[in-house]
């Protein structure tokens, strides 16, 4: 793995400069359906259904805010958000489908590899929103139109500024192995969180399992979701976050909490979260409407502004004052790699961290 050390930093056009490395390998023949816009007819059909069930791993306040924005845009449709760690959502969707329960309309996972499985199973409904066709780079949309990357975010290091002086703060993943951080770190768990699964894959690829082995000896406080470490950090429960949502840290910092992100010198793990509709959605029109709406420039801009995540929409501008993703050294994504290695990661991780 270490041999493939890829730290490409490709500069993208527009505000959201992102690695153009293919997240998903494109098949030879792509047959995406005709792009769909938010039409009055679609809105009408969606309102008739009146409801949308959205499985998502987004941090709850963020996700609920997105839901409220959708409800405000299309009064008469209520959205129910099922938030859980992506790996748990994956398991639950698997369990529900196996039992012929079709509760979910639309899903946003923080483990892009899940879409490979779902697509393979034939569970997804093709739908290409107009904006995706026009403004999304090819590498961030499924050639068959089954899903598109709605958001991109990072799993970074961070520290509590009350507990750690900036000059003492870790600068790299390697720094976290310093004995002075023993018992002072918090991190998420790849068996529950898709973000951590994706990040762990990239870190293992770049730094090797030895790094994880050493980190495990640092008596790290283990939580489940990648949304939790920023909160534990801001409470002052731990001084340093070894992995977790960078956007959580940015939002907390903007809210005046004593936290500061650190973009490790080895590169910051990058996660893209695609959204796709299930073929068996009980509210298919509402799901289509949501999918089309979610990927419009307006929504993407709004989303980027209030969630501090990143968009691959070519016309979306980053919020003034925030760090541009193009200024951050990123680790490369590889959804297929994650899919192949997920089982191994869960097993080896559980052995190392004993939970």
């Amino acid at each position, binding site marked *: 793995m270490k041999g493939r050390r890829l730290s490409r930093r490709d500069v993208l056009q527009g505000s959201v400069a992102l690695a153009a490395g293919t997240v998903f390998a494109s098949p030879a023949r792509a047959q995406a359906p005709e792009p769909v816009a938010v039409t009055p007819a679609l809105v009408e059909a969606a309102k008739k259904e009146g409801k949308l*069930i959205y*499985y998502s791993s987004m*941090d*709850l*306040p963020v996700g*609920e*805010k997105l*839901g*409220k924005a959708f409800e405000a845009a299309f009064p008469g449709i*209520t*959205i*129910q*958000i*099922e*938030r*859980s*760690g992506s*790996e*748990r959502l*994956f*398991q*639950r969707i*698997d*369990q*529900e489908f*196996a*039992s*012929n*329960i079709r*509760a*979910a309309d639309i899903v946003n996972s923080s483990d892009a590899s899940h879409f490979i499985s779902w697509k393979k199973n034939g569970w997804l409904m093709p739908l290409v929103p107009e904006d995706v066709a026009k403004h999304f780079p090819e590498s961030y949309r499924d050639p068959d139109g089954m899903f598109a990357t709605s958001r991109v975010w990072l799993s970074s290091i961070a520290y509590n500024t009350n507990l750690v002086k900036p000059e003492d703060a870790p600068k790299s993943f390697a720094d976290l192995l310093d004995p002075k951080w023993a018992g002072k770190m918090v991190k998420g*768990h790849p*068996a*529950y969180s898709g973000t951590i699964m994706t990040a762990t894959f990239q870190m293992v690829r770049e730094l090797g399992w030895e790094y994880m082995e050493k980190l495990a000896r640092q*008596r790290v*406080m*283990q*939580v*489940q*979701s990648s*949304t*939790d*470490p*920023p*909160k*534990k950090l*801001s*409470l*002052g*429960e*731990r001084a340093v976050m070894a992995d977790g949502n960078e956007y959580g840290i940015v939002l907390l910092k903007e809210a005046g*909490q004593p936290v500061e992100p650190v973009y490790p010198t080895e590169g910051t793990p990058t996660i893209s979260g695609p959204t796709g509709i299930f073929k068996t959605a009980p509210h298919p029109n509402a799901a289509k409407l949501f999918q089309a709406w979610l990927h419009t420039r307006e929504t993407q801009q709004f989303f980027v502004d209030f969630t501090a995540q990143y968009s691959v929409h070519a016309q979306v501008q980053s919020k003034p004052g925030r760090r541009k993703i193009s200024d951050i050294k990123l680790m490369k994504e590889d959804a297929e790699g994650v899919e192949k290695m997920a*089982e191994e990661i*869960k097993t080896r991780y*559980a*052995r190392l*961290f*004993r*939970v």
Partner: protein
Amino acid sequence: MTITTTDTPKRRIDVTRPVLWLFAAFMIVLIVLPLSWLVVFAFTDKARRPTLQNFVTLFTDPAFLDPLLTTAIIATTSAVICCLVAAPIGWLVSRTDMPGRQTIRALLTASFVTPPFLGAVAWELLAAPNSGMLNQLYRYLTGAEDPLFDIYSLTGLIFVISCYTFPFVFVLVANALDNMPGELEDASAILGGKAWTTARRVTIPLALPALVAGALIAFLQAMTLFGSPAILALPAGFHTMTTKIWSLFQYPPKLELAAAAAVPLLLLTMLLLQGQKFLLGRRGFSVVGGKYGAPRPIEMGGWRWAALAFCLLVLLNPVFLPYFALLNAAFSPNATTLVTPSTATLHNIVFVFTELSSTQLALKNTVILGASTATVGTILALVVAYVTTRRVIASHRLLGFLATAPVAVPGIVLGVGLFLSYTRPPFVLYGTLWILLLAFLTINLPSAYQQLQAAFATIHPELEDASRILGATRLQALRQITAPLLRTGVIATWCFIFIGVMRELSAAIVLFTSQTKVLSVLIYDLNESGDLAAISVLGIAMLVITFAVVLAVNRIPMFGGGAGARLRNS
């Protein structure tokens, strides 16, 4: 009075037996089906070929042996701590003139209502090593570097489990001491026994069965608990059997191993229940014969205030401190910062009730499930207790066994069993509230059954016979005579089950879907993402609902409020 024609009751078919057999069949399906699937899975491989490989894996892999050992340590220590704390408090409340006895008893009984997972979250707020409020206070007062107490540790977990388990032991001990006539102690005193001798030779041995039963319950609770370990063990870096079993359900699910991992818990429970029987033997511990007066409370003089202080100190842990922490977090912008009038915010409450889209559904589901499980469960337990105490049908022993058997099955294991049973024809219930109803029913049946069985035992069978011979069918007699006489017991059982449903997480976590989410699962999910303030709001809402429902049920006119006084002399 003149004798005219004899009023022969019309001939009717006695539907009692078919009805009873129907109940029996339901019980068998309810309990045998999930357990059978568990056994099948434990002893087969993925292709359902018989194998012992699951157990070999289990007993050779340290990833399984460690949790087993941890669980044994937790269960044993918790049981010992519970007895050490509950026995003296039970004695103080029941046999002495300590001031505020009734209040202490009420508070301890009320602490049943606290779900263990909520208690664990509250203690996270209090005693997380760095952000915990108690540790902050300790550092502030002493200037120390190290925390006073780390809740994310084995000790911390044992502490929290004990906090929410010892009330069970307390209730058993206090009730046993309540029912022990004072004359027994007087008889020892008059024969020359000094106070301590009397306590040692009479009081303690007579309270022993309750204590043993209490220790057993504490042990089983601690062993099968999922909520507290799920919240505290992961950050502490270890697994218990229940969290390990839960992790085996994660993708890709290893149901065979999960089922096999349940077998040691199952066997241990059965062994313990047998051991209790053997230990107590045939000695008469239930008080026999004669009429007894109320016991004389022991006068403690100046020590009564010390005793009260001790009780209040103990009560800090399950009641006062956690609820303070939850209330604080509900109104505070930062969950572990002491709220002041200037920082107080309604943001968390607004978030939970207006923005969080699962709140209403979870509330609705929980109340529906709580009420229906309590109703169905009470009826079922009533019938089974009736059949076993009155030996109505030949297989009454089997029914009694079936109703008690779920005690031996941890909720999370039962969850898998139910999942396996009800995701395939003929009963496809997964994804509906029915499967949760079945799960909650099964989990709460043993305690409901035992409560009602005890209640039945106090009702003379001739009361029913008298009704039958006057022309009532068995069901009429049950409805008109037995049920009203069991009123108190029935209400208590109903409330007990309702509270049990509110507390239940371990089976629900396996069986819920997005449309059948309950409060406990919602709280667990919120804990996963670290939304402690939202948990606090929901937890308090949950308690308010529980108390409101319990109060309301006790006032339902159908149960004839006030009739209690009439029963006193009979």
